[in-house]
């Protein structure tokens, strides 16, 4: 049959047709499209916005746009005392708030030169590792949900709920804990809390295997992630990758081993390393790290001895509430610390811990005043989001969701 040409159409109708369409496509196969993804997109783990340039369904370019959750925490730190800032660190990486608390107080203690009692260090290690387990459970669950396996999310959140219950007893808060204090921790770990920790640690291996059994034999899950979002060892280092994402690219680098802080040199643990550098490897690293963290917590429980939980430095460590109400000296110290701060000596330090997402560092500059002159937060999520254009190039739109899930960004931390 002969095709209809323009001449066959009634001129009036043709006129209407031309007026109706303001898009002219000369060659459908050559056409590029800009897709705006986010900031309100459920799979972007917060308010991350991506501008994607698409050719059909293939991503040929990507520009991440961050800053939708920028609250100016670095500016705020310059205007409040070191103690006042502890609750604000909870709001950075809100999936593992206790790790941020630990990172902040360690940086302040390095600046002020405070030695912390061993028991407090072990308690900090336990809560930091529990935070890592909680964070990785959420990461694995939401990652699986992003690629379509919804059940895993419910199961991993069930495990995380147990950690929340432990925090509830230990710190009195489930989510934004603010548990650490400069020079120690807020209160001693109660036997009930430690018993819950022990029970949780004993069960986590079997429970995690249960979750993994839903994924590791799932052909759809494996095939959607295998070989997707590959980053080489050299690129990962150049992009400043740290934490699980770097170890998935074959670099055995862990700050707990490289620059031991707290009592990490006393415990025995393995650093899981995978060499593929793809989304699947990043998932495997996280699952293995949960087991290693459980091992660390187990050893901490054994090594922990009864003792002091706060350093005996009345000029820079807040006294216990009961002492403030009953003793004059403690009341005065409390008043001075709350009103004028702890005044670390003039100097500048950088302290980083192995947070759950990667290297979480604080750079502090003191001029000898009660509040920091400058505070810089080195947040791993910010650094990891930067590499998204490199990771998503050449993949499908649906893979973008998987790649974002695999690098596990938290926007509270990336946007500060």
């Amino acid at each position, binding site marked *: 049959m002969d095709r209809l040409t323009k001449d066959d159409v009634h001129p009036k109708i043709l006129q209407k047709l031309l007026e109706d369409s303001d898009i002219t496509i000369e060659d459908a196969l050559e056409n590029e499209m800009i897709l705006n993804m986010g900031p309100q997109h459920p799979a972007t783990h917060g308010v991350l916005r991506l501008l994607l340039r698409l050719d059909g369904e293939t991503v040929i370019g990507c520009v991440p746009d961050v800053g939708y959750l920028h609250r100016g925490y670095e500016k705020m730190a310059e205007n409040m005392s070191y103690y006042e800032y502890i609750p604000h660190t909870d709001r950075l990486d809100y999936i593992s708030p206790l790790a941020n608390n630990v990172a902040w107080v360690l940086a302040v203690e390095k600046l002020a030169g405070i030695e912390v009692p061993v028991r407090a260090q072990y308690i900090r290690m336990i809560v930091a590792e529990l935070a890592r387990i909680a964070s990785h459970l959420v990461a694995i669950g939401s990652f699986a949900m992003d690629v379509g396996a919804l059940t895993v999310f419910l199961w991993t959140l069930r495990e995380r709920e147990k950690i929340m219950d432990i925090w509830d007893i230990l710190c009195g808060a489930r989510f934004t804990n603010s548990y650490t204090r400069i020079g120690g921790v807020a209160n001693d770990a109660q036997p009930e809390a430690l018993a819950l920790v022990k029970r949780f640690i004993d069960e986590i291996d079997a429970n995690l295997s249960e979750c993994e059994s839903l994924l590791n034999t799932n052909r759809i899950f494996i095939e959607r992630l295998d070989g997707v979002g590959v980053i080489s060892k050299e690129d990962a280092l150049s*992009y400043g990758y740290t934490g699980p994402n770097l170890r998935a690219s074959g670099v055995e680098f862990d700050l707990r081993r490289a620059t031991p802080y707290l009592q990490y040199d006393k415990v025995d643990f393995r650093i899981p390393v995978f060499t593929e550098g793809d989304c699947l490897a990043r998932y495997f690293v996280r699952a293995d790290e949960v087991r290693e963290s459980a091992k660390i917590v187990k050893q901490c429980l054994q090594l922990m001895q009864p003792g002091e939980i706060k350093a005996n430095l009345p000029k820079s460590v807040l006294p216990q509430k009961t002492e403030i109400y009953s003793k004059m000296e403690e009341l005065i110290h409390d008043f001075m610390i709350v009103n004028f701060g702890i005044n670390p000596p003039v100097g500048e330090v950088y302290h980083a811990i192995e947070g759950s997402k990667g290297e979480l560092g604080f750079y502090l500059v003191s001029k000898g005043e009660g509040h920091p002159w400058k505070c810089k937060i080195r947040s791993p999520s910010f650094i990891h989001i*930067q590499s998204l254009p490199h990771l998503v190039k050449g993949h499908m739109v649906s893979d973008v969701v998987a790649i974002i899930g695999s690098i596990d960004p938290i926007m509270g931390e990336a946007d500060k």
Partner: protein
Amino acid sequence: MELKELISQKLQANFPEAEFEFSEYRNEFNVKFNKKFVNPICKFLKEDSELEFLLCEDMTAVDWAKRKNRFTVVYHIFSIKHSFRLVLKADVDESDCTIDTVSSVWKTSNWQERECYDMYGIKFNNHPDLRRIYMPEEFEYHPLRKDFPLLGIPGSLPLPKK
């Protein structure tokens, strides 16, 4: 030879005009130099086979408010080979508020320098994409400067029109 000595000797031998100042505080080794040499020094530290500072952990600036050289740009770089962290510093004056980019050395510096530009207004020469990162494009100020008030400047962020 101790690593700190090795670094200081190598740097002084390769960059005799960089006006190095070495210092140590709380076990952190600080190297301060003239800002003109920032790119070659970083390239050297990364590529030297004995040092291998492959990881640029962090970079930022400090605003000293009333000092002659108002800003100090600070880099924290890490050598996985030696498990050693090095702090690099370069002063930047307000009258010539620029410094060379190191994003050609470490790709991660790209966004870190954008953040530094956004917050302090320090321009990075030869940067591939120097745009604001957190604040809106039309924002005129640099919020982490000491002369920017904590409560913000009224009207600096216009609300969308009805």
